[in-house]
């Protein structure tokens, strides 16, 4: 890996702009058996809450055309167990750790954030956009006032760590939400989370997911994600982490062009754990071939002239 891949995002230096997306990479350790995770720019771990959460009943996943639906329901070990049991192991690998977290109330969001602020992690990613839990989650992400409110309060509580807010694509106008985050003091935004979808088993007549609806991810949603990152980039000045359907280096360049300063790879990790590493290598080649000395040179350089 070359220096040219180094990416400064919210003042934090990532080895490269390729981070694995929350919920698709476990606590990182699951993948450490299969790939060298220290080669990653960073890892955004599975959404953490104050208390351990068991998630939704099964079935929780279903494939759709070039996508998948999930309604895991934010199952996680809780913030304390994460810090005590997962983090020390994870820290043995030389990569940045972003902790994705959520709560059911603003107070819960603030409490988890405070705890993480004092833990040995690099950055917080606040999930206000998970479509798969009834309370909290999506409600915060689909009402701009709530988005402002929760962001403002969490940011106020943080002393050490940058705060990135993860936006929901299930809104009429993502610009409003990006703006709300910026105004409330967020250091960055990440976009997008999953689109709300559903599928039904025509033989049993039951929804494929116990939760009825679930989050749609994968290459199917990439055009929506690209559009939203583009819109957000034209609206706010804080940096954007681009997410949604990334399968190869070309997708990363596309996200860069519309305004991403770094990216997250999600569903692709399921398809082949080697994908993020391959993307990093290929991106390096692309940058050499095109004489790009840093990924930031690409950010937002889409040519809108006609």
């Amino acid at each position, binding site marked *: 890996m070359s220096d040219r891949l180094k990416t400064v995002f919210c003042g934090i230096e990532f080895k490269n702009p390729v981070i694995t997306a929350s919920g698709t990479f476990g606590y990182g350790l*699951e993948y450490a058996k299969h790939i060298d995770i220290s080669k990653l720019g960073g890892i955004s771990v599975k959404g953490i809450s104050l208390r351990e959460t068991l998630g939704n009943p099964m079935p*929780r996943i279903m494939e759709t055309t*070039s996508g998948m639906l999930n309604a*895991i329901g934010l*199952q996680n070990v809780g913030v304390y167990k994460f810090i005590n049991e997962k983090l020390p192991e994870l820290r043995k690998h030389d990569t940045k750790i972003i902790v994705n977290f959520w709560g059911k109330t603003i107070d819960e969001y603030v409490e988890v954030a405070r705890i993480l602020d004092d833990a040995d992690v690099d950055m917080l990613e606040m999930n206000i956009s998970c479509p798969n839990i009834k309370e909290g989650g999506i409600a915060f992400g689909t009402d701009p006032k709530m988005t402002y409110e929760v962001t403002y309060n969490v940011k106020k509580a943080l002393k050490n760590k940058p705060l990135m807010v993860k936006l929901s694509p299930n809104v009429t106008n993502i610009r409003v939400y990006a703006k709300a985050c910026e105004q409330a003091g967020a250091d960055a935004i990440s976009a997008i989370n999953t689109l709300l979808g559903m599928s039904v088993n025509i033989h049993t007549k039951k929804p494929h997911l116990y939760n009825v609806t679930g989050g749609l991810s994968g290459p199917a949603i990439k055009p929506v994600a690209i559009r939203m990152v583009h819109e957000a980039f034209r609206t706010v000045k804080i940096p954007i982490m681009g997410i949604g359907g990334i399968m190869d280096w070309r997708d990363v360049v596309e996200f860069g062009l519309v305004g991403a300063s770094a990216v997250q790879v999600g569903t692709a990790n399921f398809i082949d754990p080697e994908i993020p590493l391959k993307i990093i290598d290929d991106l390096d080649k692309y940058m050499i071939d095109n004489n790009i000395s840093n990924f930031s040179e690409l950010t937002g350089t889409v040519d809108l002239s006609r």
Partner: protein
Amino acid sequence: MKGKVVKNQQLNDKYFFLEIKSEEFVTQAHVGQFVMIKPGSQNYTHDPLLRRPLGIADVKDGKFSLVYMVVGKGTKLLSEFHENGMIEFSAPLGNRFTLLENKRVALVAGGIGIAPVYWLAKTLKNRGCVVDLYYGGRTVDDVVLLEELKENTDHLIVTTDDGSAGIKGYVTLPFKENVETYDMVYTCGPKPMLRTVSEICINADIPVEVSLDERMACGLGACLGCIIYVKEGDEIVQKRCCVEGPVFDGATIAWDKLI
């Protein structure tokens, strides 16, 4: 990982036997484990998107085998692989069966559940076990590889729901009659069958290992899409089928939460 297709043989209307050459993989695999396999040769198309889990049905001479049933687009694409084509997979994944030596064991397989049982039978036989295989299917088309299975078992009892092969009726019936005679039971197949086999074993106080089959996205323990509910003492806890399984102690499975 990549391997070369040595053979992709159609066994009957539904079933295929796929043999893949892959030296690096083969030495690490254990009986009961599975592979996540890419159901298309093309990295540049994304439908189907996810890899498909398939039990390892045999390992020998630097090759491994899979037995699969065509049920949807992934397995249909798999069936179109040509010899010498390269195929991608992650493997070996999951835990394994407990392998006894010199004991009397029963294997109970239903339909495509034969895949991991095939290798299990061979292995236990090689370890000096007396191996009885109870193998049930809906029709004659759901019981495959009978010649090979006969060679690797002491008794092969075949049943079909419609009597088109072997004894007519459920495979659990002949098994139940003999359950007391075994030191250990292994089973793989549809969930209702697995439950019945487990209950028979619990009643007879015989240990039983069950290979479970849940829809999987990652196969690596990351997505939490493949949860199995298991009793631990008074509690019911969650296990990931892909990492803590697919083989579970049949006496601990919380069937009511699964079926």
